[in-house]
């Protein structure tokens, strides 16, 4: 049997068990759409679980749906990045662990809009779930070197104006549909700063300067919380290269504060904590 089919059989079996034995009210997973695309779906009963599926097309991070069902007993299938997202949400008090039944499974990576293995998955460090209630054993995707990391290094070595040129070119593409925000499990604010008009932080004009502010601020809000699942990058209809900036940001947080988001329950996000002897920046210091 093909390993993906085998995995799906195991997932369905565990999901059925969760409905029977663990009393979940609904299961968040994926199913096939009419056109054969794998899409997120909510399963409300034991019988519906027959449609449950996971494959490399499942580019959506299921953790972004959890909050809207948080007063119910939820079952969900989770690989590495989804479980890490859940850890962050749990750490931030957004969901209740007791209401959550996690079926963990090893991830083989998901594809982007061009059907290529997504940048976030190529060098995924944690394809196995970090929290789970039951686990399908197996090996996750093997870590490879990711061209996006090379781009980070390349940009690091470029001049300021070259970096600005690249950034501007990416920001020009953005249409401000906020799919990145909505697809991100960590962007759960009830009212986002762009939706506030008193004061009006940001004009809604989708031009390069305003888009830059939007994307930089969103990234800043994710610093130390981003689990590098890449859902925003895959959701972007315009193909804005968000991954290279998020990778850089995660590298910065890791380098400065030795922190990776979503690995441990009970941890504070990097920017919500401090050490008195944190590296002290001072003006004039060489950055980047």
């Amino acid at each position: 049997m093909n390993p993906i089919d085998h995995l799906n059989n195991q997932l369905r079996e565990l999901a059925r068990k969760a409905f029977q034995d663990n009393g979940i009210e609904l299961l968040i997973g994926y199913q096939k759409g009419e056109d054969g695309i794998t899409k997120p779906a909510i399963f409300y009963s034991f019988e519906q679980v027959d449609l449950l599926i996971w494959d490399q097309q499942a580019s959506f991070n299921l953790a972004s749906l959890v909050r809207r069902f948080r007063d119910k007993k939820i079952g969900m299938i989770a690989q590495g990045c989804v479980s890490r997202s859940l850890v962050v949400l749990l750490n931030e008090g957004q969901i209740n662990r007791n209401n959550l039944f996690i079926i963990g499974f090893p991830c083989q990576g998901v594809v982007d809009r061009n059907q290529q293995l997504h940048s976030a998955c190529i060098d995924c460090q944690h394809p196995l779930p970090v929290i789970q209630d039951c686990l399908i054993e197996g090996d996750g995707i093997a870590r490879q070197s990711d061209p996006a990391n090379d781009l980070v290094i390349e940009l690091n070595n470029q001049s300021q104006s070259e970096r600005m040129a690249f950034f501007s070119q990416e920001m020009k593409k953005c249409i401000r549909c906020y799919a990145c925000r909505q697809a991100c499990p960590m962007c759960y604010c009830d009212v986002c700063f762009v939706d506030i008009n008193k004061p009006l932080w940001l004009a809604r004009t989708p031009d390069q300067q305003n888009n830059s502010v939007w994307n930089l601020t969103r990234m800043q809000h994710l610093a130390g919380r981003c689990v590098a699942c890449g859902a925003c990058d895959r959701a972007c209809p315009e193909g804005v290269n968000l991954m290279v900036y998020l990778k850089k940001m995660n590298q910065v947080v890791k380098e400065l504060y030795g922190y990776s988001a979503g690995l441990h329950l009970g941890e504070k996000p990097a920017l919500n904590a401090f050490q008195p002897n944190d590296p002290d920046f001072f003006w004039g210091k060489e950055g980047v």
Partner: protein
Amino acid sequence: MRNNTVSNPYMTLPVRIAKVSFESEDRSLKTLELQFINESDRKQFQFLPGQFLEFSIPGKGESPFGIASNPSEEIIRITVNRTGFVTEAIHQLEVGDFAGIRGPFGNTYPLALMKQKRVSIISGGFAFTTLASLLDYLLEHEEFGITGYDLIYGARNPGMLLYKSKLDQWKGNPKIRSIITIDKEASGWTGTTGFVPTVVEQSDLQPNQAIAVICGPPIMIKLTLPKLVEKGFQTDQVYTSLERRMKCGIGKCGRCNIGPYYVCKDGPVFSLQQLEGLPAEY
């Protein structure tokens, strides 16, 4: 390239603030009287009770307001509740300041239907604005032959009642049976107390040959409607003026859409009959 100032419905008519006064004691409501800079604009700006205008402060934005003045008055009166970004800016305006208005937009109260009928006006809070205009207008135009008026108007406390001098004036009018109510007992208040729905329930409003116009916060409307139905009012006898977030005022920007209607263009006045079966998105 063409410069179509005249036909462009997004451009504003310049006005000057002629008078500003606080309407409520908590200073959240301010009444502005607006004077057109160009005489011709006033002639062009012909409205009837129920219509609204878009008040614009350049650099801040626009907000819709029901017109509270009698159409025959020279000035245009609006009452502004300080809630958001634009209304905050409007509250800072002083006499002599300039602003822009667009309009008049929307439909009017069903004036033709009111002929030879009894008009029952039920209102709560600061939604009273266009109803004051209606009452003024009908009193002035005797040809409508209104057989009588009921005025039920409630506010949180006596300090929150709008247009107090007018209320006193109407009290003395034998054609108007007015019940002014406040939510809770307050010192110095000798009138009725209680919420509008309760007052309506206890009143003797008659559905025969009557049109009821009801305006107020959503919760008040929701609770008052069943009381009117109990009293025998039909859905085509009850009219309400809806409020929605609006931008363009001319049925283009889409946000005030309720079913097949745009509140700004096909409304804001709807009969209950029209609203039946549509999403209760107001």
